[in-house]
């Protein structure tokens, strides 16, 4: 399994470089740097330099990144004032980027995003709200228009006490809708600074603690993000919804490839601690005869243990 993080908050060249190196160190496989629409073109200008520097780093402290690691750039429309503004930005940037998300929070904007099939992701519908910002109507619209809902780890990280509990409650409510309506639900970190970076296993453990199953975490970090990026690579060939041009296809081209979906979710995130690491050997230095005498006085409670000692 690969770990996709579709929401790394891009800011400037140096900060982006540090985030990429740190995230790679902690096990992430694909990073998507998100920029505001105003800054996106500037970010594209330094994209090649950024990748060159990240992938061919001479600094011994940060090992050069391997070939499996990928970085992409996308747009996050943050703080849209009204649905019209969202629509304008989408029309302007849809063909220029593979990832287009919009920050939610306002109910009208949440609805406008869920109704727009040209937007990939509704980011944080619970933002600055006391509820989750989702209901059954929005959930059905999200399914119909294939808009993914994004939950950010950073919202838990940077809130405390009552507010953190509120965010977790929102996550659980959105998860409940996801289980019923099956809209795409993606999990991201929204990393902004180097102090926000956590290892993939830590994030998985957190979402498990909240109540996500292994399969939901797998889908949220790998399946849905990959589908979004793959879908957008083909988006220019889409004529209308459900119909796309397959370039170079013949009568015998297999258009639909079935993937092997036999994944054992039970053992997906188990830790590999080698047996010989675990110190369970009988430790003779602590065994003396007095210990056994003490145990004899206990009312048959430790009979099994005595048996072990006698052996």
């Amino acid at each position, binding site marked *: 399994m690969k770990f996709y993080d579709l929401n790394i908050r891009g800011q400037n060249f140096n900060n982006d470089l540090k985030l990429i190196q740190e995230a790679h160190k902690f096990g992430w496989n694909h990073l998507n740097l998100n920029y505001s629409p105003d800054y996106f073109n500037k970010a594209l200008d330094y994209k090649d330099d950024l990748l060159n520097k990240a992938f061919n780093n001479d600094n011994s402290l940060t090992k050069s990144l391997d070939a499996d690691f990928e970085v992409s750039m996308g747009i996050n429309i943050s703080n849209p004032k009204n649905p019209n503004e969202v629509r304008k930005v989408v029309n302007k940037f849809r063909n220029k980027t593979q990832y287009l998300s919009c920050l939610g929070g306002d109910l009208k904007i949440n609805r406008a995003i869920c109704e727009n099939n040209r937007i990939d992701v509704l980011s944080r519908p619970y933002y600055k709200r006391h509820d989750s910002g989702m209901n059954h109507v929005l959930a059905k619209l999200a399914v119909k228009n294939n808009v993914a809902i994004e939950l950010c780890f950073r919202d838990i990280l940077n809130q405390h006490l009552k507010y953190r509990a509120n965010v977790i409650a929102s996550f659980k409510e959105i998860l409940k809708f996801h289980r019923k309506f099956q809209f795409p639900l993606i999990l991201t970190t929204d990393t902004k600074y180097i102090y926000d970076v956590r290892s993939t296993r*830590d994030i998985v453990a957190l979402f498990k603690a909240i109540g996500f199953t292994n399969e939901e975490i797998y889908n949220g970090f790998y399946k849905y993000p990959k589908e979004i990026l793959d879908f957008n690579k083909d988006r220019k060939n889409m004529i209308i919804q459900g119909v796309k041009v397959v370039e170079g296809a013949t009568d015998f081209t297999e258009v639909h490839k079935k993937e092997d979906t036999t994944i054992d979710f039970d053992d997906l995130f188990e830790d590999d601690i080698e047996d010989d690491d675990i110190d369970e050997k009988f430790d003779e230095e602590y065994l003396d005869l007095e210990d056994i005498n003490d145990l004899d006085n206990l009312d048959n409670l430790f009979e099994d243990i005595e048996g072990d000692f006698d052996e």
Partner: protein
Amino acid sequence: MSKLKVLPPTLRINNHYLVLDVKSEVELDKDDMVKCIWDACIRFWGECETSNFNLWVMRHYFVERSDDFIHYKTILRCQSGYEEKVRVGLATLTRYNYNKIAITTIGIAGTVKSAVDKFIDLE
């Protein structure tokens, strides 16, 4: 004061050792780490659940000082079966004494020795 007898192995709690990667704005000694770790776990899991963790800071190493942060590695003992909960609690810590801190678990081992051998490389 007399010491309690050491429990026989079958009655002892099984422990695992988490290797933590710690980034901090300011210098941290071992006592600070103890406070950070207890604070993080109690804040996220509460007193009742944290009582199961059997936390103990075994080792605390300084690794390097960079422009952005001071880097440490720590070996933390916790009861086996609670590793995931401990790492969640630690991952949610962001500040200690108003200074930024980030704790990430980079490995789990069965003994302190194997934890040091595998994950601590101080050159």
